[in-house]
């Protein structure tokens, strides 16, 4: 087999992390362990990665979205602020039983934001790309929810629909979570 970086050279070793074939020149000996230059870079990055304090992230989350912003997840933080503001704004239009539902949703979302920023900070410290809980970068479902809320609020702001109509959409939360669970179940059975 030939070296990954020099196709013209015969390989002498394999990287002990990613198993790339390596020639003499490309083999980097790290305390008896042979690594390729890409894996060395990764290891160095892990040492220098910015540490986040999970407890500080959780405390900052008392202000909605601030914990996520502290974690460097700016867009997530902005979406958290917007969703929280939407929910609290809609609660004014919810009457009776629906007011209770919205109160529960606000409380749940508030706790979720605190837990998420705590977990995200831990994930960042471990050098994981895929930050803990929802919403992951590139979560289609989260995108659809945001888009849907945005369109609904634009329509309501221009008086094409009533805010009460958006309030009436609350059962969608069951449908979204249910659909997500079924999708997961289907995926895991394959």
């Amino acid at each position, binding site marked *: 087999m030939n070296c990954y970086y020099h196709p013209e050279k015969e390989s002498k070793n394999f990287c002990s992390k990613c198993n790339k074939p390596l020639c003499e020149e490309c083999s980097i000996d790290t305390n008896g362990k042979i690594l390729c230059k890409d894996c060395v870079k990764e290891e160095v990055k892990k040492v220098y990665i910015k540490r986040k304090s999970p407890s500080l992230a959780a405390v900052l989350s008392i202000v909605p979205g601030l914990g996520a912003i502290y974690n460097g997840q700016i*867009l997530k933080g902005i979406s958290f602020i917007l969703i929280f503001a939407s929910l609290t704004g809609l609660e004014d239009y919810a009457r009776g039983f629906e007011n209770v539902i919205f109160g529960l949703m606000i409380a749940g979302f508030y706790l979720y934001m605190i837990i998420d920023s705590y977990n995200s900070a831990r994930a960042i410290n471990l050098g994981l790309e895929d930050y803990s809980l929802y919403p992951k970068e590139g979560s289609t479902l*989260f*995108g*659809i929810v945001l*888009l849907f809320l*945005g369109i*609904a609020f634009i329509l309501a702001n221009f008086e094409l629909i009533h805010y009460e109509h958006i309030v009436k959409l609350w059962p969608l939360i069951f449908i979204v979570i249910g659909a997500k669970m079924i999708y997961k179940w289907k995926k895991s059975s394959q």
Partner: protein
Amino acid sequence: MAKRSWDSLIFGLILLILGILFLLSNFGYRINVWHVIEKYWPVLLILLGLKYLIAGIKKR
């Protein structure tokens, strides 16, 4: 990692537009910027939604 992201462009544009609107209203043009924000803030939700959606579709 050195991929150029659209985030900076979008948020740059939003800040730019807000700045221009506030300036205009400070110099006597009859624009109520807070009114504009009140009406158009869900655009931010839509843009964020599109971002997550596009990233999700690309990942497939």
